[in-house]
């Protein structure tokens, strides 16, 4: 079942992930460290939705800072379906029809994964098209607010509202609005099936992707297998950047000005250390250690700077494929079902799973989960993804 960590408006139609601020309502980003933190302002995306008449129903649960797979290590506990399988809270709220759509932060693929598992749509738009103002920051260079909804049409409708230049976000692109309506016709489209990512998935997931490709062909789409040799390097690079940026961004949580403060301290150093020890979970701590190391003296060139160079190479490789293809098709995650697991395994599990999701975060290109799989498109080509998903939904892909 879906779950709100905070209910805001019984007549609301939009769920907002707890990593996105809604003025006056506790925003914890799934972490104890932000306990009691009530933002002074709403995220730009929330403001735009409210301005367009959509009321916020509540804050949907996320894993601590959105770092885990599906919110399994959320401070309030995981979201499970009737069979005990892990689900994303917002995706479940959408799937159950409790809300019309949801705003989610995609920093390591969690909302894409969640949508694919719950059978709904999620689109992570091109980096810079949707304001990050009011997002609890983690991986600033690649995280982006996207939309979960039941159909591609509903995703398009909400995305139009939230996208467009925001002067408060220095990385915001200049276009004032995006239409997402004038995409290419689906018949005649060329889609590349990414071999490295499909091969890495479980058999049932592979079968799902193959079947999806087959139905695409039925719509007049040419599907060809393509190779993205840098896929693994992209995963490593993105994880490194994500850990480094997260480590830096969460270092402001010290238990002093806002959020959780340990009751147990004798001096300021103990206040800092105990608040963080008690306020952050094991996964976040692992991310902090890994990220701090990557930035440390002597490691910057061999780790962080190298990751930035890999980012450039991956971007070139992906751009090269988009000369020939309108979209790239691949699994959104390795399996079709996930069960709760021990937090000691979280860092390794998340790292492995991000193979499927890292490329759009690393390169900024749009990605959409739909029909239980995902597609990437070239920068600002969201309309291709939406048109494809819409055609597939019409063809009974769901």
């Amino acid at each position, binding site marked *: 079942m879906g779950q709100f960590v905070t209910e805001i408006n019984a007549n609301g139609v939009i769920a907002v992930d707890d990593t996105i601020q809604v003025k006056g309502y506790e925003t914890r980003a799934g972490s104890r460290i932000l306990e009691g933190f009530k933002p002074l302002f709403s995220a730009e995306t929330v403001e735009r939705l409210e301005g367009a008449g959509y009321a916020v129903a509540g804050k949907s649960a996320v894993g601590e800072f959105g770092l885990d797979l599906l919110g399994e290590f959320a401070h309030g506990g995981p979201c499970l379906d009737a069979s005990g399988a892990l689900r994303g809270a917002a995706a479940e709220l959408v799937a159950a029809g409790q809300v019309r759509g949801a705003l989610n932060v995609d920093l390591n693929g969690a909302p894409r994964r969640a949508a694919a598992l719950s059978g709904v749509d999620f689109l992570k738009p091109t980096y810079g098209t949707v304001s990050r103002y009011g997002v609890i920051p983690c991986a600033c260079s690649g995280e982006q607010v996207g939309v979960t909804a039941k159909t591609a049409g509903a995703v398009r409708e909400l995305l139009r509202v939230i996208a467009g230049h925001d002067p408060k976000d220095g990385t915001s692109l200049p276009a004032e609005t995006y239409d997402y309506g004038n995409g290419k016709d689906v018949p005649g489209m060329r889609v590349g099936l990414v071999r490295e990512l499909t091969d890495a998935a479980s058999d049932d997931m592979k079968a799902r992707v193959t079947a999806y490709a087959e139905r695409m062909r039925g719509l007049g789409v040419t599907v060809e297998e393509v190779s993205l040799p840098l896929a693994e390097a992209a995963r490593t690079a993105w994880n490194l950047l994500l850990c480094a940026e997260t480590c830096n*961004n969460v270092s*402001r949580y010290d238990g002093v000005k806002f959020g959780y403060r340990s009751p147990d301290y004798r001096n300021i150093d103990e206040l800092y250390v105990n608040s963080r020890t008690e306020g952050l979970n094991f996964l976040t701590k692992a991310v902090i250690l890994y990220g701090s190391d990557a930035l440390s003296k002597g490691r910057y060139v061999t780790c962080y700077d190298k990751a*930035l160079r890999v980012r450039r190479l991956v971007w070139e490789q992906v751009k090269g494929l988009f000369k020939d293809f309108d979209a790239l098709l691949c699994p959104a995650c390795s399996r079709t079902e996930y069960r709760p697991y021990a937090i000691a395994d979280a860092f390794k599990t998340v790292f492995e799973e991000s193979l499927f999701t890292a490329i759009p975060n690393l390169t900024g290109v749009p990605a959409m989960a739909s029909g239980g799989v995902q597609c990437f498109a070239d920068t600002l080509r969201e309309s291709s993804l939406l048109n494809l998903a819409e055609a597939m939904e019409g063809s009974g892909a769901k």
Partner: protein
Amino acid sequence: MSERWETVIGLEVHVELSTKSKIFCACSTEFGGRPNTHCCPVCMGLPGTLPVLNRKVLEYAVRAGLALHCDIDRETRFDRKNYFYPDLPKAYQISQLYRPIARNGYVDIGAKRIRIHEMHMEEDAGKLIHSEYEHETYPDYNRAGVPLLEIVSEPDFRDSAEVLAYLEKIRSLFTYLGISDCKMQEGSMRADVNLSVRRAGETALGTRTETKNINSLRAIEHAIESERSRQIHILSGGGAVVQETRHWNDDLKTSTAMRSKENAPDYRYFPEPDLPVIFIGEDFLQAARDSLPEFAEERQARFVEQYALPPKDAARLTVRRETAELFEAVVSRGAEARHVANWLIVHVPHVLKTLSENAEDIAPDPSELAELIRRTESGTVSRADGLRVLEALLSTDGPFRVSDYIRERGLSVNNDESALEEVIRRVIEANPKAVNEYRSGKTKAIGFLIGQAMKDLQGKATPATVRERMEAALET
């Protein structure tokens, strides 16, 4: 034993830019507001906020870089410098390490050239106020996010005189640019001193220390002398200088070790992901070049040449750009250059002192000032009245026309013949002693008599006329 030692100094100078708003948000940069009143979620580092670069800061930085003869990086960007301290609400400072806005410049002080390694933009931190009575510390974030330029020199200084000349030069350049007021006492200009010593003739650099918390030019002199002696004392005794950061205590006139190289923080710099790379176009750069003013040194040379002023006067007139501009404006309105120089160097500062006003706070109308100087110097207004009018002109009474003011108050010198004769007669009668002295050859006594007459005339005659009539009257 008297070994000869050479001191080698490099400076890191921080200058606060005088933009109206902070570097990444719209908060005021005004100095001295009540604690935490010039703050917003952005400069308080609250989660969810994002920095947006104030374009004015970029413009100021480019102009500063050009004034320091630097190469401007056409693709500059910001980096995050991690350090966890209560004065830094985000736990990182947005600064520039990898692609600073300017590099490879220089400043000439007299015949000596000080090379600039690089200059970069960054945000200032907040201020911690430590309670004197309890073990408590209060952060004030008004200063957090105020734009700074940090100018890093090469180790080209050899004594404190060079350091002071360099700081004066930077202050002059930046005040001429109008980008900072460079007031050390208000912290808008701060300097960290990197210093090492070596035996005369050695070419390798010795181990250096960095001294922080130096808040005045005098303190810099003291700090340099103190650190130089300390290092020479250590090395002379066969010891080794430890590479460390030292904290200057100006009350005690000594420094204490803050942290050594071993526990120096690792700032873990990385490119600021929230701010895009800044591409500086040719138009922007050209506009910055075109906006550079004629700086003090060139202007001083021109004043000597163009207005036949003594170099000392030209130097004093060009310390501040506003004074230099006022000088030329007044001269261009028909007052004689040497008179204007004299008024601006002698009379104006004197009057400001009586009014307890600062030169920065006044901006007299050049036409009126020219009128006043002309009238006074030509003798149609007495000097005493002239200075009274100047006082009115410089006080905050509001603008007025000098000619109206003189007419309405009857300050015009009439050198009224009969009144003059009458006063001189009275003075001679009333002061027989001085008259006798004068007549017996002590001609200096006339000064006293003229003074008495001027007093009676309440300044309504020129001293030259009074002297002429007095001499004539005493001869008879």
